């Protein structure tokens, strides 16, 4: 009996101690291998908090992490969260991990991973970014016309577009790479969703919005005195209230302090890079301009390529499921030495910007509301009077998603007003560009229908009508999409859409007189706006195909054809010359001859047609290797292209003036009739000069990228990227410039020293092919950096 009691007690004690041990087992001390050896039975009995600890220790296998990169979500294509595979439009998403792994040192450079986007560097950290092209229109014009004015860039849905002259001032975007959660790119006309200027597509930069305590520091520095960094922290005040703050900086130098000067045939100068002293001498001796070079590049700061410093903050308040609020704001100062927006003897131009923004988002019982404003002072062309503007932008929008079974309807309204005011930055009214506070306003109503039939067929129709103050008219845009999901792994889609540009400030309100005193005729050039300008409009047809034949492969193909017209250009209206003053009593008095060229924004007949295709593939090649590749081919042809510069028209007007003057002088001699005191010639080039089937080769016909992410062990990641674009021909008023294609090889090696700390070395263009990527701008060589990412 005693033995039985003893055995019983022993068993009880053993069981009790086992139970105690099991109950108090510290899962946080288990290794990953120990966790993976646990049976399903053992884990199913655990409370959820212990299960979560184990799953956290196990983490995600390396291949699952790679698979996750092939299963991304997107919101920009439908204004609603959906799987990237199901997106009805040509869509690409880069998430934070991909951007970080790529080694991209800027948002623009990260876009080299996106199909259909071509990125060419102008100076260290300043880029030309195009979605599918359709720029440099009309050909034979100023450098400004090479800017991408047909892609709408947004930060968290807030347009950050340059409404002054169109385009994107990338250095002024108030966000750093470290703050970006993901970049969503939609290719093709999207005005029906996002309003004007989403012509070639939309780039939506979506920032992180953590709801828990996080902090991070990212820094890298290297050659060409390049230093880039950001810090951020966020915390939770309560379950309903979160906040975050961040700061960032960027400083970069060029690999030379010389600047390019355009060719001057009259003085046998072929064009080329000059040091500032020589530039100043030529500028003065050859009467290139009456600029003061010291004002352009103060203290010889032509070496500096880019600098920006800024700070952001946000607060999120979600009182309950029906109410959500987010208020964000920031301040940024920036400077970029990049291609000019003006008409200077050098394409180099320092742009400066300083100002802040506020962005308020709310969801009130399902209604999405956005209110945003920015208040920024921008000097678009330092050293040239009249180019500094106080800019204000106000955006208001609201939309609501109605779900009716398989049908979703999203009605919406929006309003935007943009103001430019140069009066505080000019000596007197008349010496500025606008000499006024000018405004562009537009408001719109939109509706989007999204209908899914038998879970396979999806039909989307988005319609938008936009009312502008300049021109004073309603303009519609639309998007019709049909997709067919053959099964979970194959999807076909077709799109027909129309989008348009808005008018820009200089097109509408220019009121600027360029005093060319001392530079020869014409002594004055006047730039006038047009209150009834054409709006560049594009129609696009697109066919797309997506395949996910296995979990490890994601293929995305799109073929597109688009037609665009309604281009405008700054062209001469007339040339007015004051010549002789005739007086029968005094004879001829010969005052100083003065010529004024009157120019304005005029509609052009030219029509652009583009055909092209992009193919992208992401492939998981085993548990350690991911391949990401894309390639784009395109051809652009112009009909009714005049392809002549402003100067060609002006010279024609001079010729008309001389012909008339000669006749009048002959009459003076033969009949005694005095010539007129002023002559006005307004002859335009004959329409017969327009040509069809003219190739616009300003964009390479081919470009693409091949990137490999290799994770040989859990602590090491190697990313290499080859990027290539073919030859192109840049056609501006400075002539035809044939540019060679270029191959870039980038690489980044990251070592994860701890869970919190990663150290890396990063090389951009590591084979140092030091050639120009963009016409007339820097020879871009290698950039070598080292840095760290720290989060805690």
């Amino acid at each position: 009996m005693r033995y039985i009691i003893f055995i019983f007690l022993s068993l009880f004690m053993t069981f009790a101690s086992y139970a105690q041990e099991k109950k108090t087992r510290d899962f946080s001390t288990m290794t990953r291998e120990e966790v993976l050896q646990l049976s399903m039975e053992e884990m199913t009995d655990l409370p959820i908090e212990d299960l979560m600890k184990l799953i956290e220790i196990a983490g995600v296998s390396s291949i699952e992490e790679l698979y996750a990169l092939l299963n991304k979500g997107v919101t920009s294509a439908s204004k609603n969260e959906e799987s990237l595979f199901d997106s009805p439009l040509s869509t690409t998403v880069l998430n934070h991990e991909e951007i970080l792994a790529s080694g991209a040192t800027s948002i623009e450079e990260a876009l080299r991973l996106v199909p259909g986007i071509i990125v060419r560097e102008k100076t260290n950290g300043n880029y030309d970014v195009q979605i599918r092209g359709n720029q440099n229109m009309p050909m034979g014009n100023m450098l400004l016309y090479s800017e991408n004015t047909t892609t709408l860039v947004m930060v968290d849905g807030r347009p950050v577009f340059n409404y002054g002259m169109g385009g994107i001032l990338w250095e002024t975007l108030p966000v750093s790479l470290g703050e970006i959660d993901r970049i969503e790119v939609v290719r093709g006309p999207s005005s029906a969703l996002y309003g004007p200027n989403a012509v070639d597509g939309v780039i939506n930069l979506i920032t992180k919005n953590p709801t828990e305590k996080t902090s991070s520091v990212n820094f890298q520095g290297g050659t060409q005195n390049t230093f880039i960094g950001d810090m951020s922290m966020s915390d939770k005040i309560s379950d309903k209230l979160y906040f975050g703050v961040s700061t960032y900086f960027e400083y970069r130098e060029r690999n030379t302090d010389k600047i390019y000067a355009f060719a001057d045939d009259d003085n046998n100068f072929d064009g080329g890079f000059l040091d500032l002293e020589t530039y100043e001498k030529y500028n003065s001796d050859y009467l290139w301009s009456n600029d003061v070079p010291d004002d352009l590049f103060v203290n010889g700061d032509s070496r500096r390529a880019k600098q920006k410093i800024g700070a952001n903050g946000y607060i999120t308040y979600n009182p309950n499921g029906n109410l959500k609020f987010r208020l964000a704001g920031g301040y940024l100062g920036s400077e970029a030495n990049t291609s000019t927006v003006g008409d200077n003897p050098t394409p180099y131009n320092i742009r400066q910007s300083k100002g802040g923004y506020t962005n308020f988002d709310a969801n009130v019982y399902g209604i999405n509301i956005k209110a945003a404003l920015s208040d920024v002072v921008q000097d678009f062309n330092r050293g040239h009077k009249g180019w500094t503007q106080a800019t204000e932008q106000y955006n208001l929008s609201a939309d609501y998603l109605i779900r009716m079974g398989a049908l979703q309807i999203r009605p919406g309204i929006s309003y935007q007003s943009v103001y430019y005011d140069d009066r505080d930055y000019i000596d007197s009214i008349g010496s500025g560009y606008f000499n006024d506070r000018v405004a562009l306003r537009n408001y719109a109503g939109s509706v989007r229908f999204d209908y899914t039939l038998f879970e396979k067929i999806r039909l989307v129709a988005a319609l938008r009508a936009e009312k502008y103050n300049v021109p004073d008219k309603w303009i519609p845009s639309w998007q019709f999409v049909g997709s067919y999901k053959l099964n979970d792994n194959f999807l076909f889609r077709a799109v027909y859409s129309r989008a348009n540009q808005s008018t820009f400030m200089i097109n509408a309100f220019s009121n600027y007189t360029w005093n060319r005193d001392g530079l020869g005729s014409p002594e004055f050039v006047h730039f006038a706006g047009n209150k009834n300008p054409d709006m560049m409009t594009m129609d696009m047809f697109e066919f797309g195909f997506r395949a996910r034949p296995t979990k490890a492969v994601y293929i995305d193909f799109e073929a597109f054809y688009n037609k665009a017209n309604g281009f405008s250009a700054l062209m001469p209206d007339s040339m007015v010359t004051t010549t002789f003053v005739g007086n029968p009593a005094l004879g001829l008095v010969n005052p100083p001859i003065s010529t004024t060229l009157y120019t304005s924004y005029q509609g052009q007949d030219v029509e652009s047609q583009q055909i092209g295709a992009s193919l992208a593939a992401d492939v998981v090649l085993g548990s350690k290797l991911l391949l990401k590749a894309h390639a784009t081919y395109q051809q652009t042809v112009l009909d009714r292209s005049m392809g002549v510069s402003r100067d060609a028209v002006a010279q024609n007007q001079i010729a008309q003036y001389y012909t008339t003057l000669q006749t009048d002088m002959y009459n003076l001699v033969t009949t005694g009739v005095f010539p007129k005191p002023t002559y006005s010639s307004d002859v335009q080039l004959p329409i017969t000069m327009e040509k069809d089937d003219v190739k616009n080769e300003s964009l390479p016909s081919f470009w693409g990228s091949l990137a490999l992410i290799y994770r040989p062990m859990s602590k090491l990641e190697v990313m290499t990227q080859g990027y290539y674009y073919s030859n192109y021909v840049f056609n501006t008023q400075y002539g035809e410039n044939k540019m060679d294609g270029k191959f870039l090889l980038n690489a980044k090696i990251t070592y994860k020293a701890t869970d919190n700390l990663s150290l890396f070395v990063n090389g951009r263009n590591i084979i140092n092919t030091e050639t120009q990527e963009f016409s007339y701008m820097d020879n871009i060589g290698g950039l070598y950096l080292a840095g760290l990412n720290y989060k805690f």
Partner: protein
Amino acid sequence: MKRVFILFLFMVVMGSFIHAQQELFKSLFIYSFTNNINWPSEFKNGDFVITVVGQDGIVSELKKLAQSKKVGPQTIKVVQVNSASEIGKSNIVYVSTSKSSTLSGVSENLKNSPTLVISDQNGGCKNGAGINFVLVDGKMKFEIAPQKLTSIGLQYSPKLTGLGIVVE
């Protein structure tokens, strides 16, 4: 070139067959949710039905689990369907990643039923899921929409909102 292509194909195929431990973890999570959520009495009779929409490796993991575990007295029954229209009375509906486009339709159809919809896609809770699996810094976590659970009559343990990422 041909060798490179064959090697490429081999690596792709091998990559596809490597075991996915995530499916095991997701099925464990789902079972754990059943211990922390209380269904109305009419859903506590008969089998505890977990319907999986789409072809997904989680089906086999759930079936393994169902062989040894019950939810209270209820036997776990795992049903795999290919479209939302095939979903019958279920305690849980798991919408696989490949069928994520059906999520909003599924949750709309089930808005009056105490059925927990679980998804595995970005923004799943915003599209009607009660719980959504997410990867955060290489770790599997879950988002939870408490308002959604309450609106369909599911009572949940505060543990879930404490451990998950709450999406309002």
